[in-house]
């Protein structure tokens, strides 16, 4: 169905910010039961990424799976030196099922990097992020960037049970202080997370809040941020067709200057100001 074409040099005077390229699969393995990690060998030109940006992926067509549109996926890791691009994904439907079929050596058509990522303010020393589930994929590069910039990072990692807390390890490896909360231990409720954060804010240990969480997480963090005047950013999702800003299918509503505006998640986002985002 899709046209499998190989790295068209798409005209000399394009901006050269976003590329459609054929990457090569290095590995594609199950991590932690629920998630899969895809490691691609990708050309340097697409590895100039920002944390929070995403790629738009052309999932492979076969007799069993025939996804048509591309699928948006956060960058889980970008390593220009190693020429690697990582994705962490959960098998949800036709597209991700097709992705799960990718084998070492297969080519995989990807387009990116896309969208606006997280920003770390020059004077923000203490960053706090709250991640759950696949949201980890979106926030991992932020931790890496925080370390590069020498900022302190606290990561609150939420999961169903302690054994799926792979994020904890990852953030610890990146030098973050990690707090784990789980459903099975009854520690992942909003009230409890709020209390943890409020406590740190009281100690002046939070300059910015980051998340890509759920509705409840958004509402809770908005409340905290507003109350204490702490800036925050959230990565949002929306169904996408083009992924680059042309089709206007991926709009969401935002509160800005007392009015409701529509913004494209693929272009103005996927990372938005925490206070402007609207619960849904």
């Amino acid at each position: 169905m899709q046209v499998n074409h190989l790295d068209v040099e798409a005209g000399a005077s394009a901006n050269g910010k976003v590329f459609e390229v054929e990457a090569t699969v290095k590995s594609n393995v199950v991590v932690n039961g629920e998630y899969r990690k895809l490691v691609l060998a990708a050309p340097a030109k697409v590895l100039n990424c920002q944390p929070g940006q995403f790629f738009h992926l052309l999932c492979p067509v076969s007799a069993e799976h025939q996804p048509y549109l591309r699928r948006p996926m956060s960058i889980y890791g970008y390593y220009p030196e190693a020429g690697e691009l990582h994705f962490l994904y959960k098998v949800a439907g036709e597209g991700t099922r097709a992705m799960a079929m990718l084998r070492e050596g297969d080519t995989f058509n990807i387009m990116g990097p896309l969208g606006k990522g997280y920003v770390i303010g020059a004077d923000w020393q203490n960053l706090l992020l709250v991640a759950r589930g696949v949201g980890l994929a979106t926030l991992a590069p932020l931790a890496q960037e925080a370390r590069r910039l020498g900022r302190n990072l606290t990561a609150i990692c939420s999961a169903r049970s302690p054994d799926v807390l792979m994020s904890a390890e990852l953030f610890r490896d990146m030098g973050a202080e990690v707090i784990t909360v789980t459903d099975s231990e009854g520690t992942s409720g909003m009230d409890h997370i709020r209390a943890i954060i409020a406590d740190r804010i009281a100690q002046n240990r939070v300059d910015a809040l980051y998340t890509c969480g759920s509705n409840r997480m958004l509402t809770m963090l908005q409340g905290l941020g507003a109350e204490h005047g702490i800036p925050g950013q959230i990565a949002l999702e929306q169904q996408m067709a083009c992924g680059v800003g042309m089709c206007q299918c991926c709009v969401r509503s935002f509160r800005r200057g007392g009015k409701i505006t529509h913004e494209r998640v693929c272009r103005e986002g996927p990372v938005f100001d925490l206070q402007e985002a609207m619960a849904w």
Partner: protein
Amino acid sequence: MVNLTTRIGNLTLANPIMPASGTFSEDLADIIDLGVLGAHVTKTVTREKRGGNPTPRVCEVRGSMLNSIGIPSKGIDHFIQNVIPFYHRYDVPLVVSISAHSADEFARLCEEISVPGVSAIEVNISCPNIEEDGKAFAMRPSSAHAVMKKLRGASDLPLWAKLSPNTGETTEVALATQEAGADALVVSNTLLSMAIDIHTRKPKLGNLMGGLSGPALKPIALRMAYQCAKSVDIPVIGCGGISTIEDVIEYLIAGATAVQVGTATFINPTTMVRLIDDLRHFLSDQNIANVSDLIGTVRDADAADAVVFMEAAP
């Protein structure tokens, strides 16, 4: 060596490949050089600001997609101040797609948008005519004729009428728009469709129904392009399901003077650049000097009896 230029009325395009309205914007300049395209066609704009349809606005169906974006629009002022100037940097004809819910508002918009930098106006008559019974202007020859007539009076720019596959009167509508002064036809827009999520039992589009585009639309839009090319004298621009060079050639042979590429750009953003390249190669491989030598060369008198190719013995 091969000549890719094609003429749409008094406009000469460097090549016959251009984007379809609503599947293209300035943003694509991040990925390809917009300067290589035959024309630039912008997303339909309305006079007033509009919000567009509720989400979800797209979904996929087997090998194709549905959309119910609607026409979110920042209004004509924003368009004239921000969008048109962006395209000044390219030496490529700019075609502006417009729409409205009444013939008078349509004409006013047409007049106001006839500004320097605009080479042609594409008239999206697939939107409901709220002055009549809410059926789109493009559904009936009479309403298509009436609105085109008003628009013709409102601008000296070339007017391209974009037809709808939802009508049962394709050639009648085509003839009516020609007669009312259209300079070219774009054939066609998306086809009204539906998809339902069997688990939630909700329609997959927030707007219940939406337009089918992509490969599934091709045989239908190609048939319409052929019917139109046979019945009108003005150029026909083919649109619907084009993603490969074979698709482009098929439309040209059917009688299209140029083609628009829509959904395929979502799948491969470099599609149009590749098609221009492929077209050049196709023509030179086949020793065809000019794109125009292909246009309308369908051997429709010889269709039947092609039994000979059934021989197994070579």
